[in-house]
């Protein structure tokens, strides 16, 4: 066993750090307050290869690995939770299923532009009546002679308002239950496909979270992703990978809050000394960092397993469960250590606390992760 990063990973981490500090951090507050999607950042991320990290060069990727991608999400999320999830949804939920389940033609058609950042990806599974119970899909895809006709609605779709490519789940056989679900690749602007309501959120406010509306959308047969009826499994596998990305986002948010806090407590003086001189501050920080470091081991381990083509869905669930709960705990404690200033928008920790909450909810709530983990234990 070797816990050291390779030289390439260290240098990639430096790139992500420099990029985050210089390009992402300065606009993080504005992105949050104005609920603005950071298009300019995404464009730059594309330029430096960050939008296509774990995919081979033949598809315009960077030929790096899952761990590198995880570190990118982590570093971005340290300074801006929004930017972290934009990358995570794009990579894990759109590019990854096309790469893993797509035909050579689909890969050649979609991946190069996704990997260069020219196109942004999204993933549509959740519906008004199909949240944690994702099998209760009501979006229908009827097979016609040379196309599928899709009708229905998806909600809470990350990147929806800005995405070019969407992975969408729909029922091709209503009677077959989860075995009647299929996955499709949709493109922005297909007739009948529109973007609905933009959600106003508590955190990650710059990410574009919207409804997808399908009204008699004709999708060519060749846009079926994977086999007909295998969409549910495809979605679940995709989410297994996605959870590593969200776990990395949670990890980043938590570490970012600690970094801000460490800096603050050395400066802030009360009772004639910096508050870092008080044992309460010291012990809180020790707890916070220890938990974040433990979370990092789980996240990196899940990434390692996925990279090495070993089963990882339990480890991904554990990583997400733990990292997201640590993020919530650590950001809450950070706000407390900042005191009144922490509650104001002058400092970023209140934003981090708001951003942290969603990591316990999306791509499977903490409760879903516990179902996944315990099911493996009790089978």
């Amino acid at each position: 066993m070797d816990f050291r990063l390779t030289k390439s990973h260290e240098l990639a981490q430096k790139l992500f750090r420099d990029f985050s500090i210089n390009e992402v951090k300065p606009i993080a507050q504005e992105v949050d307050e104005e609920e603005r999607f950071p298009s300019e950042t995404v464009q730059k991320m594309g330029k430096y290869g960050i939008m296509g990290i774990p995919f081979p060069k033949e598809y315009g990727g960077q030929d790096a690995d899952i761990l590198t991608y995880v570190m990118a999400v982590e570093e971005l999320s340290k300074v801006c939770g929004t930017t972290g999830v934009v990358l995570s949804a794009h990579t894990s939920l759109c590019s990854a299923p096309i790469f893993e389940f797509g035909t050579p033609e689909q890969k050649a058609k979609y991946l190069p532009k996704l990997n260069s950042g020219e196109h942004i990806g999204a993933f549509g599974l959740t519906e008004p009546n199909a949240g944690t119970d994702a099998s209760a899909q009501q979006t229908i895809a009827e097979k016609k002679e040379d196309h599928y006709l899709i009708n229905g609605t998806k909600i809470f779709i990350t990147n929806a308002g800005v995405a070019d490519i969407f992975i969408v789940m729909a029922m091709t056989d209503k009677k077959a239950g989860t075995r009647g679900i299929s996955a499709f690749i949709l493109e922005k602007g297909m007739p009948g496909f529109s973007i609905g309501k933009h959600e106003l959120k508590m955190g990650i406010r710059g990410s574009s979270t919207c409804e997808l509306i399908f009204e008699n959308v004709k999708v060519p047969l060749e846009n079926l992703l994977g086999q007909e009826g295998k969409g549910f499994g495809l979605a679940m596998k995709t989410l297994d990978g996605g959870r590593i990305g969200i776990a990395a986002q949670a990890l980043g948010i938590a570490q970012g809050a600690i970094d801000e806090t460490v800096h603050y407590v050395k400066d802030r003086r009360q009772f004639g000394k910096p508050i870092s001189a008080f044992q309460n501050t010291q012990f809180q920080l020790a707890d916070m960092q220890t938990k974040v470091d433990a979370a990092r081991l789980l996240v990196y381990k899940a990434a390692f397993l996925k990279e090495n083509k070993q089963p990882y869905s339990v480890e991904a669930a554990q990583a997400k469960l733990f990292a997201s709960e640590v993020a919530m705990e650590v950001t809450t404690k950070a706000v407390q250590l900042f005191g009144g200033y922490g509650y104001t928008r002058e400092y970023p920790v209140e934003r981090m606390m708001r951003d942290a909450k969603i990591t316990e909810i999306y791509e499977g709530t903490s409760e879903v992760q516990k179902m996944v983990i315990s099911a493996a234990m009790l089978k």
Partner: protein
Amino acid sequence: MKIIVCIKQVPDTTEVRIDQKTGTLIREGVPSIINPDDKSGIEAALVLKEKYGAHITLLSMGPDQAELALIEGLAMGADRAILLSDRAFAGSDTWATSLALAYAIKKIDYDVIICGRQAIDGDTAQVGPQIAEHLSLPQVSYVTSIEKEENSLKVKKVFEDFSQNIRIKMPCMITVLKEINQPRYMTVGRIFDAYKENQVERWNIQNIDMDPSLTGLKASPTQVKKIQTKGAKTAGKVFEVDAREGARLIVEKLKEKYVI
């Protein structure tokens, strides 16, 4: 066009701290970076490459760990990287350093040598012009823009209170200011490529056909006699005085720090 960019790995002096107890420099944990002016030199070369086509060779003299600076330059987009490393160079001042670099450059095909104006650890601004002198090349220092003409470059050089547009025939040496550009980042893919293909070439003193007596500590005209740290930052003094006396105290302090 063939471009050589000379770069130096330096400690990030903005991260250097003074040990409050001993008054000495804390070097541990201080990250090493590409000297900022040199990084702008790499970017300037990359811009020329994009505009006119070019092959870019990075050259650095330093210990083994300076490889990282070269890898970073490759990951930004340079084509070739050479680390000039030999115990014989240890202790070289700017004169001996520039001579060794000049020997190395003689082994490389080039039209232009780009150096950063100065390094943040030494701030001497000497190595670029001294390389040019050793190679008998024309030079322009303090450059803030570069355009290529047929066999020459048109550059803008800035002085304190004026600037000049200058035409300089290639081969030549220029030193650039940080202000010339905003260096790009590395790309993820190039980072992995640079390590996979182990692209940094290592040259020692034999590779450049240099007599060891010409470089290193013994061949350096200047020697460091004494190093003092500025000492621990002591808590400042506060004076309750009238405006005139206050002004005088401030002037005193500014003089002490060579500000005026």
